[in-house]
């Protein structure tokens, strides 16, 4: 079983941020219009070379 590579020695493997925005501020930001117009976030990698085939 393959394991995920481990981080560099001494490096904290976890990053985080505490957000300072109030819930009210965020809820007010997300109007129906903004939610409807939000762009789908995605990662599409370039189609690989000859080796690429669907894996089903």
């Amino acid at each position, binding site marked *: 079983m*393959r394991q995920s590579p481990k981080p560099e020695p001494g490096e904290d493997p976890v*990053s985080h941020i505490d*957000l300072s925005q109030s819930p009210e501020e*965020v809820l007010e930001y997300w109007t129906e219009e903004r*939610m409807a117009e939000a762009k789908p976030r995605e990662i*599409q990698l370039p189609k690989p070379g000859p080796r690429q085939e669907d894996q089903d």
Partner: protein
Amino acid sequence: MTRTRSLASGLLTFSAAAVLALTSAGGASAAPAPSEGNANPSVASVTVDAGGAADYWTPERMQSAVPGDTLAGKALERGNRSSPLLVQKGKPATTKGTKGKSTIAQSENPVSHIGKVFFTMGTTNYVCSGNALNSGNHSTVATAGHCVNESGAYATNFVFVPAYDNGAAPYGKWTAKALYAPTQWVSSGDMTYDTGFAVVNPDSKGRLLTDVVGGSGTAFNQARGQSYTAYGYPQAAPFDGTSLWSCNGVAKDDTNNPQFGTQGIRCDMTGGSSGGPWFLGVGSDGVQNSINSYGYNGSAVMYGPYWGAVIQATYNNAAVS
């Protein structure tokens, strides 16, 4: 004889009603007229503007529409001047039917702990998918790393909307107070670690997320090649982001980029499904073991990161914060 009459009547009903509908709603530019030239002398055509047809057909108008058989009767009253010699003339011919565009992904009813996440990166608003997890703080949501952090910059205005369904938020909107991601995702965008966690605030009544919507168990460092069900809210065409979809399949390694250590299942969910949960086995009641991460252009395979020790540490930190 009876069958022939019924079929003819049905055809007349459909074609006459269709012409009437388009004519009434869009305004035909000209009365039907035989085609010019001699290529098809017995074919009539009319150009219609169908732009307003959908608006025209209110439920009330549909309810009160006159049965097309009335038109069939009027047509018969006009007489039958066809020559029997013109009937059954020509070679047998067929055309192929189509089933419309189908997708690999299956439509699902909303699931209380699965939802959409909305957030801002820079000045752009984005949408992804996420899932509430059973956790010490009862407030942890799993999503993709690329839905919480881009090139080292964390998202703002982050909100989780469980069981989102066509604009409805039956369990409310849960704002994030902290975001977590593996350092290797944050520092270098390593696809191996494309997972993020949000810790959300209590709602306005002081309730915690998973006390309201429930939370999935988690699994880490599992065997590869297992069967998964992936969920998400794909928004890019042919989907529209209004509802939940799923894919099911046996995971296989990404042979294009084996250094990622990721696995893929057959799935054509598009952008917006990123961050949606992968559950071991069939259905949404299993333990979560990955997320929708990436695909390749022109390939109907969704890949997810292997949830090993680093992502486990990230979850552990988020879950007790």
